[in-house]
């Protein structure tokens, strides 16, 4: 990154009571970036979102947006943020335009300037034909667009979105992603949280959060390249079978191939094998363990592989654990 960062997060921690929800997270986001915070539920991404949105104060560390930290003037910091919450913040009993006008007034805007700005944003979000409709008559996808228009009213430097595609159908999801990408190209820095790999895939850079820690940071392409080689996945019927098979596979590969058994592991009911020589392994494994697995897939690493590679546990289960048993 050559440009100075617009958002810089410095050793940010947050505790709730005894629970450490975010553990010394640091990274920068450059102006105009589309940055996704990826992680399972409970991984800390919503806590990080709340911190950046100035909803809650940090326990330790700090962050800066455009050079402003939350222990300075909150009001000045908030002027630079547009925030889209996971649960809608629109007033359902007001029309689309009325919602924008009330929010504009809250930001200190008014008169013709506000009217023009609201009209322009609604057109950009493709919802100008619904401006006079009550929000409660809008579909989820359209309401989310109005929500984004509302967040952009004050011309923020950073648009923060918490799980923006939650509750949207696939088509609305796709058009929302296109919209966010377009915003980023237009120079608005977009920082969103997601637990969807394909959504993170479209970001310029991602940070992966697990159990409150930042476990990976980089572009999706780079992160996947770091996993390296090929990923073989052997699907079994149960976690136990997978565990047993993983041990056997590791033993067989460890003796006859490169001694790097750490790259073989049971993840849920599957066994993952990361090797540079994936295609050559397919017949070997098929011959060595007949009937021990349902299917064998060979592929390039995905973001899910990145997650598993960095954390050593499957993505879906990660959130369910309140904390690892010591």
């Amino acid at each position, binding site marked *: 990154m050559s440009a100075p960062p617009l958002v810089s997060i410095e050793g940010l921690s947050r505790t*709730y009571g005894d629970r450490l929800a975010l553990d010394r997270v640091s990274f920068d986001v450059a102006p105009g970036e589309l940055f996704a915070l990826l992680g399972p539920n409970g991984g800390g991404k919503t806590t990080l979102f709340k911190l950046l*949105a*100035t*909803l*809650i*104060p940090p326990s330790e560390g700090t962050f800066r947006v455009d050079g402003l930290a*939350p222990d300075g003037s*909150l*009001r*000045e910091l*908030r*002027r630079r*943020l547009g*925030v889209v*919450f996971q*649960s*809608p*913040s*629109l*007033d*359902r*009993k*007001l029309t689309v335009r*009325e919602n924008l*006008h*009330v*929010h*504009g*007034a*809250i*930001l*200190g*805007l*008014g008169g013709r300037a506000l009217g023009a700005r609201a009209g322009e944003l609604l057109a950009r979000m493709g919802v100008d034909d619904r401006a006079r409709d*009550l929000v409660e008559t809008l579909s989820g996808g359209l309401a989310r667009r109005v929500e984004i228009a*509302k*967040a952009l009213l*004050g011309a923020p430097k950073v648009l923060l979105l918490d799980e923006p595609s939650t509750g949207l159908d696939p088509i609305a999801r796709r058009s929302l992603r296109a919209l966010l990408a377009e915003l980023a190209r237009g120079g608005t820095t977009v920082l969103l949280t997601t637990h969807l790999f394909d959504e993170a895939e479209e970001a310029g850079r991602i940070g992966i959060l697990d159990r409150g820690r930042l476990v990976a940071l980089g572009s999706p392409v780079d992160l996947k390249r770091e996993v390296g080689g090929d990923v073989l996945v052997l699907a079994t019927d149960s976690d136990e079978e997978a565990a047993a098979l993983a041990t056997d596979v590791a033993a067989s590969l460890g003796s006859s191939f490169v001694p790097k058994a750490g790259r073989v592991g049971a993840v849920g009911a599957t066994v993952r094998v990361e090797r540079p020589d994936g295609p050559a392994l397919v017949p070997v494994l098929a011959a060595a363990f007949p009937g021990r697995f349902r299917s064998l897939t060979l592929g390039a690493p995905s973001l899910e592989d990145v997650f598993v590679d960095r954390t050593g546990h499957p993505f879906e289960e990660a959130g369910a654990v309140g904390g690892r048993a010591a």
Partner: protein
Amino acid sequence: MRAARALAWREIVRFLRQPSRIVGAFAPPLLAWLLLGAGFGSSFRVPGGGGASYVAYFFPGTVVLVVLFAAIFSTISVIEDRREGFLQAVVVSPVSPLAVAAGKIAGGTLLALAQGGALLLLAPVLGYTPSMAALVPALLVLAFVALALTGLGLAIAWMLESTQGFHAIMNLFLIPMWFLSGSFFPSEGAPAWLRAAMAVNPLTYGVAALRHALDAAASGLPSSGLSVAVTFAFALGAVLVAAAVINRYPAGPDRAAFRSRRKKP
């Protein structure tokens, strides 16, 4: 200023778009007035009130009850706003918490005054005729009662997480406050402890001020000057408390959230 005005405007528009709220605000007090008035009508005589009927006696209290209901409904909306998400966007926007307080209080007060005022204007239809000259001072008194009750309701609602909590406070505190305000029965003839409770209840003076405004010959009440003064002080105090609570806890009951800083000891 803009923010406060827009938030007040929003309160009013929301009210007008929810007909059930209009019914909810008017029906219970009116029903109480008609049924209790009819029921007590023959047996009840206001002590020292000459021949005043219970329907007439009960009318100012009914107006205050309408205002109380209106204030409760409009301030309870804070809890819904928080749950439905409208307030979360307000909390993280660069707006002063005092502007939020001002908008909520102004909107709620106007709604409460409009509802209480509407009942006052409807009085002749309902068979109770205050003099036209009495209406202006009565509406002024009502405005301060509305301000007081809205401020009080807001100060309570701001820190609550659920509407159930508010209902509990309403039943244990706000409704008894009305019962002991001289709306329902006069303090004359009540046991001493009840009279004491009524004397320290600020709403007693609001109801008394309204009675004075509507009927120059009203008797058995705190003096007109005292009633107006206490009502004014009640309104001022309630508004200040609501503003202080919102300013200190801009995000309401969320314990994890930012709150305004106090100087470190």
